[in-house]
């Protein structure tokens, strides 16, 4: 068994998922993926990630509602959630924070920004 931390990435863009997968693997994490909020909740019923990274704009269930749902689950009260955002609008970050997000990663992200954001919210 590996003791690497598991990260769930939730994004409807396969490109972003791939980028995250490669970067996070490089950083020494295990990664599991979901395509939107509903898919993400499904993943959470079978996996217990140490960190969740989620996009905001997604079909079916967007990131805000996804975070609200995750925080509503006892098991995930203390799981850090980082939102991916390209929005310059501070409103998005506020909404994500109010929903229960721990922090954010502004796209386009470079490996260092990503690593930094993760460090700030994980043990």
């Amino acid at each position, binding site marked *: 068994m590996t003791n690497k931390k598991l990260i769930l990435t939730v994004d409807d*863009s396969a*490109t972003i998922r791939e*980028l995250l997968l490669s*970067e996070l693997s490089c950083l*020494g994490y295990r990664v599991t993926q979901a395509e939107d909020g509903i898919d993400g909740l499904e993943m959470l019923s079978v996996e217990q990630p140490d960190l969740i990274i989620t996009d905001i*704009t997604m*079909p079916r269930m967007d990131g805000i509602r996804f975070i609200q749902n995750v925080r509503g689950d006892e098991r995930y009260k203390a799981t850090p959630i980082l939102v991916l955002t390209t929005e310059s609008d501070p409103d998005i970050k506020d909404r994500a924070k109010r929903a229960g997000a721990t922090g954010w990663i502004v796209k386009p992200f470079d*490996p*260092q920004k990503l*690593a930094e954001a993760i460090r700030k919210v994980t043990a």
Partner: protein
Amino acid sequence: MSGSATLPPDVLAGIKLGFFEECEELLSELEAGLLALKRGETDPEIINKVFRAAHSIKGGGASFGLAPMVDFAHQMESVLAAIRSNQLALDAQLLGLLLRAADVLADHVRAARDEGRVESASAREIEGALIALVAGDCPAGEVSNHEPAEGKPTAAVWSDSETPSPATAQERIWVIRFRPHASLYASANEPLFLLRELQYLGEVRATVDDSELPSIDDLVPEDAYLLWAISLTSTADAQEIRRVFEFVEADCDLEIVTDQEGAATPVADRNHPTAGSAAVSKQPDSPRPSISSSGIAAGRSTPRLSETIRVDVERVDRLINLASELVINHTILAQRLAGIGSAGTSETELPLDELHQLTRELQNGVMAIRAQPLKVVFQRLSRLVREVEAVTGKQVNLVVEGESTEVDRTVIERLIDPMTHMVRNAIDHGIETPEERLASGKTAQGTLRISATHRAGRIIIEITDDGCGINRARVHAAAWSRGLISGDAVLSEHEIDELIFLPGFSTAKAVSELSGRGVGMDVVKSGVQALGGRISVASYPGKGTTFVLSLPLTLAVMEGMLISVCGRSLIVPLSTLLETIHPKLDAIRSLGAHARLLSIRGEHVPLIDLGHALGYLTEPAQVKGVILLVEDDAGRRAALLVDDVLGQQQVVIKSIQANYRMVEGIAAATILGDGRVALILDVNSILLSHGRWSAPVEQRLAAG
């Protein structure tokens, strides 16, 4: 700064390639959504989907630093956002602009992929129109919200974006007071992680103040009672330090001052760090373990990912070849078993039958992988229609049916050019200007209908316009003036229509910008024929014109009739074969030295001795053996005299051109059950040129 994990270039290139593929999907979603809106559909999810597509293209593009594409996507996104929030009304004009913008975005994506640029004036014009829309519709204050503050994406994203602190920066002692609120914990933030993060900036000493911590009975677990006093020795400025706390700025009291400024503030006792500081004062763990296999993570259960996969076409083609070889091997095996007399026994027959079934199923299954919906072609056409509309000033409603009909991808690829030309023609020559249409009692907007269906193992594509129809008088005159027909030729209406397919025919009064690119319908026809297809036209004056294409589903296998001529085995495509006849001498008439006609049910068709036509015989043979009545794509008929008909079989088409060269009379080759090579006849060229070749086909092949 700690070294960043940089992806190996080939990994990045692979992701980038995947991104461009994803873009193609997003672009078709974008267009499909806009077209649905144009049709009057009002589901709010449509505009959301369109928005998301533009957003994803922008987001992905920004990750690769593809600035022009991202800027354009951003302008589109801003307009779409304004529509979504009802700041902009979506009318027909705006939809038209968005559709054209979608085309430009597609150009940007492809230009970015090919490392080029989009330079056209119309692209700039459309971008300007998008910008003007948002700028004009929003109060000045809001416009700036649409500017990508963090995302005016610049060149390479993978280089460190941080400007290194100037070497001259002074090391200072910072004093930070940090009091988290309960909301900080509620969002799963953890003060200790933030203190640890400070260590990346310099030396940290921290003390925790727990004086407000109540007795255990009064303690509310969700509440916040601790505060930290931190001293940081660092060259960083206040802004950099504040950035460490950016996630929790609203969830804490934070004070950052230098030693001097904060003289009034009690600084933590540096010599006696409390338990709180012990946790953070050790060196940070190496944050980056070595590269791990991404495959492990990718292989984890990801329910929806497994629905589609992207596969290299070459891999699929290799499978197709292998499946084809298997079919051939099966046939060889069956023949060998027959040879040693063990065919037809129950021990071998049943397993051999099953093997045959499985092999066929495997082959069909593999072929199906290569099949693609015609949507790929049709989508390009909808863009083309918009462009032609813009140039001609004509109004066209494109109606597409059966776009999910699947065909082998080689057929799809080679359909694009002929279809493009026909659509261009239909609008340029067929559909009238709005004024002309209104004058003749039609709607101002013309209709171009493109439909695809499967019929009898072939695919039928119809292109119908409701324009003016073919001007037969002009076609007839033009054909005559170009010497394509004699002046006294009496032609049926249909025959006149078919004249447009003749090489060198063009009725356009002046070479128009659109159709007159030196490509006529003859090129369309030969393109379709090269695919093993046929094309025909039906026209109704004043009402419109219909072109019908009939194409094979695949170019990889075909049904053929195995025949023998002068000891050689040859394949006649089954699609050309009308019937086999046992010749009766009294049905054959001689015309001059070599020409012979076969009379069949009152009709006379030329009789071609295949052995002679292919150069195996110097003189036409006596009539014996079997006669095949064949018809080529143009409807020309002939009787082919062959030695024997051996049976029908599905053959795998092997291109000759790849290894030799194009040889008249021969379309391709195949490998027979016994391992021998058999040539596949090109019936069209045999009918057109019989008797011209003197050397046997094999010699002409070798001469290449």
